[in-house]
């Protein structure tokens, strides 16, 4: 599940409550039936957590640190040993087992952070901005890792990188100023919000003639035109649920113009996000 919101929306706070670091001021949070305040220890056993700042003991080695975290999570030494190899392989830390954490780059620290979070195979994995501040190649790797992890356990991740959320998550929850403003799949969010389908069509023909013809098609709400060095692109806002592609291509061809390209454009998460979180005050 993706957790989205502008800075200060309450993402980290929510995650801290989930993981039992902070109590909720009101209300109740249960994890697998255990109240995070009343049965904190049981709840905490089921969570793996990576805070945004990736806090690690810089003077410990990767191995030593992971062993320590495993013990803190109450894992028996044998299980730590076998899981250690799995996790180090999964997070590709093989060459750095003995390295002091303080000497690792940000991306590798992030991996160590993820490694400690998944070490005890928690049912819930909470990742606070897991790809912030690492280089693009490592971002791709981290995302792949998160996606893999999401197959076996519930992953809650926060982000303000919207494509990341739409790529990684089955469900998106957008919060703003501590309130949920939207919750759905990334796809439904885009559709639901838009209320209209958008088509981008490139047509070879005189714009002055094309424009009124397009506007006259039934079901078209609005058409905007963009002339990009002789490439005329029209963005057509259609009424919800109407597929106008056939109609448009017929019209274009019957007028003797050429249809050079056409695609449906969904609303990007950025747009949804902006629309949901900025108040339009008139």
């Amino acid at each position: 599940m993706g957790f989205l919101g502008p800075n200060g929306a309450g993402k980290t706070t929510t995650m801290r409550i989930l993981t039992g670091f902070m109590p909720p001021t009101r209300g109740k949070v249960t994890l697998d039936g255990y109240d995070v305040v009343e049965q904190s220890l049981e709840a905490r056993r089921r969570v793996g957590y990576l805070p945004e700042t990736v806090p690690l003991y810089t003077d410990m080695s990767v191995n030593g640190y992971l062993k320590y975290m495993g013990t803190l999570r109450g894992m028996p030494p044998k299980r730590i040993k076998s899981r250690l190899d799995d996790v180090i392989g999964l997070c590709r830390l093989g060459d750095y087992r003995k390295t002091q954490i303080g000497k690792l780059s940000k991306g590798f620290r992030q991996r160590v952070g993820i490694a400690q979070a998944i070490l005890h195979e928690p049912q819930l994995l909470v990742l606070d901005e897991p790809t912030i501040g690492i280089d693009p190649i490592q971002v791709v790797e981290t995302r792949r890792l998160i996606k893999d992890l999401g197959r076996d356990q519930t992953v809650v991740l926060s982000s303000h990188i919207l494509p990341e959320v739409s790529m990684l998550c089955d469900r998106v929850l957008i919060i703003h100023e501590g309130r949920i403003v939207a919750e759905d799949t990334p796809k439904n969010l885009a559709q639901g919000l838009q209320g209209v389908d958008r088509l981008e069509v490139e047509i070879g023909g005189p714009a002055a003639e094309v424009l009124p013809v397009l506007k006259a098609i039934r079901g078209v709400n609005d058409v905007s035109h963009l002339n990009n060095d002789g490439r005329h692109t029209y963005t057509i806002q259609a009424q919800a649920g109407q597929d106008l592609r056939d109609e448009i291509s017929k019209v274009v061809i019957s007028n003797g113009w050429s249809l050079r390209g056409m695609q449906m454009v969904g609303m990007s998460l950025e747009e949804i996000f902006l629309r949901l979180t900025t108040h339009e005050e008139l």
Partner: protein
Amino acid sequence: MRTAQAVAWKEIQIYFSSPTAYIVGLIFLALTGFFFTQDLGDPFPEATLVPFFDGAIVMFILLAPALTMRLLAEESKLGTIELLLTSPVRDWEVIIGKYVASLVFFLVLVGLSFFYAILLFVYADPDPGPIYAGYLGFILYGAAALAVGLLTSTMTNNQIVSAVVAMGILLALFFADRAFGSVSGLAGEIIGEMGIRGHFDDFSRGVIDTTNIVYFLSVIAFFLFLSIRTLESRRWR
């Protein structure tokens, strides 16, 4: 319990690999060595460890906070406390683990200072009573000072603040017996009895009084209790 052990073991390793601890150890041994030899220069030297103990307890007002300031303040500063407290670890296990680690380092220092006692036993014929009792008192005193330092380390993410506040508390306890003269009535009695000195001096005179043992154990328990509650207070509504 295994988690408390893990915390303690990790902290002990850090003690023995960190410069702070070695600096504290060096200062402790160098200065107590000076105190120890000072009296031996007298025309009629006495085979006693009293000057060593007297110097050591004053020094420990400064050194104990230096040993404990890092324990939790650094976790808060680095943010690692977030992972520590979201692991299934009880608050008391964290505090006890950290406390035991500082205690172990302190006991190693005490162990090294046995050298002075050995010298006395080899080259002179000291009265063993005050030496044994003095060491017991010094260990109890040090353990109490470390508990004070641990509490202040739990309260802040700034190691310097932690150390200074702990020194303040220890100084106040050290001079509390002056209240006997300056504060009248029951209040003076109570504050005076809280003083560390009065309770320690019996030990170095060779007297093992249960009252004094109870005093130090109560101080330790009190400050550890407050530390646990302080750590726990993050979860209070």
